[in-house]
């Protein structure tokens, strides 16, 4: 029986889609059968980040409305045969789908897939309500800045009110040099405010920009962000993985010896 995980944040631009793409690809690398669903109807971009936009024929709204079968709309990933994408519609809006339909879709997919990842749109209205319907677990993504944390707090409150069974936190785009100078919140500061279980800390990494533009998620690669995302995937499947020591790697010695040091 598959697990439905929603990746949400409240604030836009903190890295939900990037996280969905990388976590999904990482789980596929760990030999799980994974499907990614883009629930951002109208402003879809999960397909772009995965590099699959030229393969789209049918989308989520087609499936919900019954225009096509799920099989027809799922797109197999370029690199991993056990990873699929269900893209969103660009010419419809978020009211084209309701939570009950999303629950039905998730239940149909549970039999076939180990993990169903829902990429949630920004905000707290219909798009959010659609994405969290039927989810077993929520991963809340935030960056260590005031406005993002405030929105994440609101989202966590809404998730609690909607009786989400498990809620975990990912702190994204952290810059240890700024944390050291006292110019940025540390992940501990964020955790103290949000008070939920931390499942991953991803450092700000320019490789992410490169990977997004090329449509190839970098999870599992040697870059810091790649390793951080892979650790998140391993924690999701139940392994106990210690957190990367990001502080030690930000000096020149870190760069020289970084590859040898495995935490």
């Amino acid at each position, binding site marked *: 029986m598959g697990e439905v995980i929603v990746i949400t944040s409240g604030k836009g631009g903190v890295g939900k889609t990037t996280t969905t793409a990388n976590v999904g690809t990482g789980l596929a690398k760990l030999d799980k059968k994974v499907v990614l669903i883009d629930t951002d109807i109208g402003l879809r971009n999960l397909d772009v980040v995965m590099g699959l936009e030229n393969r789209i024929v049918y989308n989520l709204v087609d499936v919900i409305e019954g225009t096509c079968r799920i099989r027809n709309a799922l797109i197999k990933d370029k690199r991993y045969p056990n990873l699929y994408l269900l893209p969103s519609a660009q010419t419809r809006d978020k009211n084209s789908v309701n939570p009950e339909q999303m629950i039905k879709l998730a239940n149909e997919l549970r039999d076939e897939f180990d993990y169903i990842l829902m990429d949630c749109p920004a905000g707290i209205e219909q798009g959010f309500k659609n994405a969290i319907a039927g989810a077993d677990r929520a991963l809340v993504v935030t960056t260590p800045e005031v406005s993002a944390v405030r929105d994440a707090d609101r989202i966590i409150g809404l998730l609690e009110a909607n009786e989400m069974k498990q809620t975990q936190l990912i702190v994204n785009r952290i810059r240890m040099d700024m944390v050291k100078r006292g110019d940025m919140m540390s992940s501990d500061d964020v955790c103290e405010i949000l*008070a939920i279980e931390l499942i991953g800390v991803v450092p700000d990494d320019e490789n992410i920009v490169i990977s997004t533009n090329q449509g190839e998620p970098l999870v599992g690669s040697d870059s810091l962000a790649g390793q951080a995302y892979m650790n998140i995937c391993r924690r999701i499947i139940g392994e106990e993985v210690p957190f990367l020591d990001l502080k030690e790697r930000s000096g020149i010695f870190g760069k020289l010896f970084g590859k040898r040091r495995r935490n």
Partner: protein
Amino acid sequence: MNNSVIIKGNKYGIVVVLNPDDDFEELKLVIAEKFKESSKFFENAKMAISFEGRKLSTIEQKEILDIIAENSDMQVICIVENDSEKEELFKKSLDQKLMELSSTSGQFYKGILRSGASLEFETSVVIIGDVNHGARVVSKGNIIVLGSLKGTVFAGACGNENAFVVALDMNPTQIRIADTIARSPDKPVKDAVKETKIAFLENGNIYIEPLSKDIIHDINL
């Protein structure tokens, strides 16, 4: 003389005692007669009325009032209920409400109040948890936060100027006691030591001070 209807009264009101066993339609005729006879006695007095001896439905009471209006000039201003069940109910509601308004009682709330959440309480409240930025607590009484207070609080919401706010980590965005409002400084001051602080109203200003024995002594409930 038919004693199925007896009228008792004083300057302010009358009691109509009805025989519980008689047929209601017959009683109505007797009532009409009695009031017609005594209409000179009552003239156009303004009276309260109460019924005894027989349980009447609201419709039956109305019918009797109509008969009185037809057969005399007396003006019935109100009906006084003798129902003991209703009396018990009123007493219970009244006691409960008074207790809520009383300043010596309160309630607990456990949990983190997250951004966007808003809670309102009739009584004082002790919050076992944090009040995050963007959350709001309103109480007619006092507010005590066993955690960090970063949101907005409004104590003494019905004008109670003795209300106070206590927090283990006092950093509210806005604080309001009765009709006075205060906001946090624009440049946040990082306190080296986290200590329990109390906010109270004095001379139209809100003061926030560490909770000391002297201040506790000065608290008025």
